């Protein structure tokens, strides 16, 4: 890696760290991600379904196919969450800074923590003694 590349990479990082647009994007991304993930998981809305035994993909939700192993939805929930949060974050950067500065920063970690008990409740099938 050349000195120019290292300097340019450091400059990009520094520009991001001082960018108010990136601050808005990251704030909205952090708040939206747990909300979207909980919605996608509870409603079972994956962006795609992966069948690991056959290495096949389906768009949206798909059930397991008989004799072809299980279906996995977590990848689809995760990708949907990342894309959805990124879109909301980008939209938020279009808003005036006076508006986005009013978003309480405590929400970024409080929303993530609030999602946990809901997700635990969503897994109630597993919390049984037998």
């Amino acid at each position, binding site marked *: 890696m050349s000195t120019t590349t290292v300097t340019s990479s450091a400059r990009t990082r520094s520009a991001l760290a001082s960018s108010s647009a990136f601050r808005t994007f990251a704030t909205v991304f952090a708040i939206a991600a747990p909300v979207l993930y909980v919605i996608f998981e509870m409603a079972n809305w994956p962006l795609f379904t992966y069948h*690991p035994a056959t290495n096949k993909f389906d768009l949206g939700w798909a059930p397991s196919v008989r004799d072809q192993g299980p279906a996995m939805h977590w990848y689809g929930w995760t990708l949907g969450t990342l894309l959805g949060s990124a879109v909301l974050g980008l939209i938020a950067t279009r808003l005036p800074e006076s508006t986005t500065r009013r978003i309480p*920063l405590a929400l970024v970690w409080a929303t993530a923590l609030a999602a*946990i008990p809901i997700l635990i409740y969503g*897994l109630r099938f597993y919390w049984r003694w037998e």
Partner: protein
Amino acid sequence: MDFLFDYISVNTFWTILFLAHALLAVALLGALTHQAMAVLLPVRQVIGDAGFVTRFRAVRGAGYATAVCVLWIATFVLGGWIYAKYRIYVRIPIEQEGFWKTQGVFELKEHVATIGLGLLPIYWYFWKNARAVEYDSPRKWVTVTLAGLCWYSFLVGHILNNVRGFGS
């Protein structure tokens, strides 16, 4: 990928991948624990010889931020890759044995890993602006939240490996 299997067995490949995932997780856990301790119990001034705990929490947290993000993403990607094999070769036997709570805590681990991923951009931003007093509180609690999520994921991964790990 198939050319790899001319040189190593399929089992060796997945073992290397799993070990890389585990080692990255150890590094991530160490970095986040140092950082969380540094923000929860900051060292103001050391009088005399600093003990182990004081030195443990006396790190400069800002220096860890980029490494934590890279480690979380790398651990997440490798974990996601291994997860497909886990779904077939580990989860099905666990279900057949009726270890429901074990399966449940792992399901929560996958949720926790994604929730943590969503926090990384703002976590990085807060730490890159470590001198901004307005971010002191959210920086502290985002870091502690990420450390808690990381500890949970690490311990559950360890438990699952104990239930059905190498050679089973």
